């Protein structure tokens, strides 16, 4: 992935900052990171871990797990714990591995920077387990209906809009009961 500042060089420095619960992640090349550090916009650069020369030079999983480490959460270390396995973000950062599936929702914001840096994206496009397929189809249907609704309103087709609204309501109602 490219450095978000210069958008030219490959990002090699990944950095998460957590201030008053607000997380922001940076993906920078070495030069831009150094410039920002000079300006004092990136403070306490020593707390960053993810600085490495070439993200694919080490060619193996183990590289990312453990050795490369996770972006650290700067300032205000969170005492947040995963409700299922009890992991803290510090635990995850220490060994590069996540404790349980629920950690991904508990620490989604903190992990997003790392996931972005490894994969260049944070959204899945591949296959889906059977249990989620119906839900996914429903979501896609809803997105489509909502778009149609907007178009109907714009074209002042209010009868059609009313139909669409009812259809959307009936689709949304059971989804809420399922509690996702």
């Amino acid at each position, binding site marked *: 992935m490219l450095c978000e500042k210069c958008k030219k060089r490959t990002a090699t420095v990944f950095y998460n900052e957590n201030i008053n619960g607000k997380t922001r992640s940076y993906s920078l090349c070495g030069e831009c990171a150094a410039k920002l550090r000079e300006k004092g916009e990136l403070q306490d650069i020593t707390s960053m871990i993810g600085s490495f020369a070439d993200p694919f030079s080490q060619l193996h999983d183990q590289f990312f797990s453990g050795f490369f480490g996770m972006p650290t959460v700067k300032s205000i270390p969170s005492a947040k714990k995963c409700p299922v396995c009890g992991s803290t973000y510090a635990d995850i950062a220490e060994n590069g591995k996540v404790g349980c599936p629920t950690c991904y929702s508990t620490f989604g914001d903190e992990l997003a920077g790392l996931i972005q840096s490894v994969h260049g994206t944070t959204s*899945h496009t591949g296959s889906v*387990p059977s249990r989620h397929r119906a839900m996914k189809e429903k979501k896609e249907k809803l997105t489509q209906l909502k778009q149609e609704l907007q178009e109907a309103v714009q074209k002042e087709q209010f009868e059609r809009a009313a139909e669409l609204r009812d259809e959307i309501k009936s689709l949304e109602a059971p989804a809420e009961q399922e509690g996702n």
Partner: protein
Amino acid sequence: MAWYNTVGKDADTVISSRVRLARNINGYPFASKLDASGANELIEKISAPLEQAGFRKINFADISPIMATSYVERHYVSPEFATKESPRALLLQEQGGIAVMVCEEDHLRIQSILPGLSLEEAYKNASRVERRLDEEFDFAYSEQFGYLTHCPTNLGTGMRASVMMFLPALTRGGYMDSLASQLSKIGLTVRGLFGEGSGAAGCMYQISNQVTLGITEEETLKKLNDAIAQISESERKARKSITGETLEQLTDTILRAEGTLRYAYRMSSGEFIRLFADVRFGIALGIVKDISYEQLGTLLVEAMPATLTLSSENTPKSEAARDKLRAQKIQNTLNPHRE
């Protein structure tokens, strides 16, 4: 018949293809946080439908370290899986090279390994088992991150597809570093096998996808297949470009390697790998005529230390004895009519 006893498509440049899918089951922490009773429970649950489908269950807590290493040599389990101490099991179906590791790093690592270039078939095999288990279990999944895995590097499809390539001409030409850096730009990685550092001794390299999120399984396989086709072409061109005195010298090296491989009295595994590469190169160039890819492929597993030791009734007591056993094994495979 095991995958390593047969030969597949593009055998001149490709040794094997492998696809593995990482899956976890909701309601259990990932393997490193799972206690022994949780792990055993999971192993029981997952084994049941697979044993019913004809898989053989091998409980790794019950087998010797040497037997565990032999499964690594046959590429059915990872070295980490073989040596860890917590409860774990392998469910194996040799037909289709399908191996399911239960409680490796992820709860499930479903893989298929096949000879030659055969990524689609390997994916189909792994996917069939995955779909069967999907009916039974609630796989950990999020709409955003896809299949949730112990290590974030496997998120998304959880799929790692890899091809073991044999690239002696590109290795000799010194092209491997630049190939690795070109591949990294399109999200593929190269790892040398059977050798220190670069893996140059055996000229064998594993090429696999780096990224698993934001790309579908089909796109990943296509990207890898396209790259393999290009690399194979480059390797073949590089082989053709060896002519004149260079070819004379190479022919001498290859035929000497064949002689040593056939008639040595003792052979270390390091020497075997070097000679293996020379002789395999010789088959591809038409210099070695009486040895087949199948014979060599079989040896690449059966002459490895653990598998070799297990094949003998009398466990070799020293390294020298094992090296003698290796030389015998090679002779028996290559010169079946020799007394």
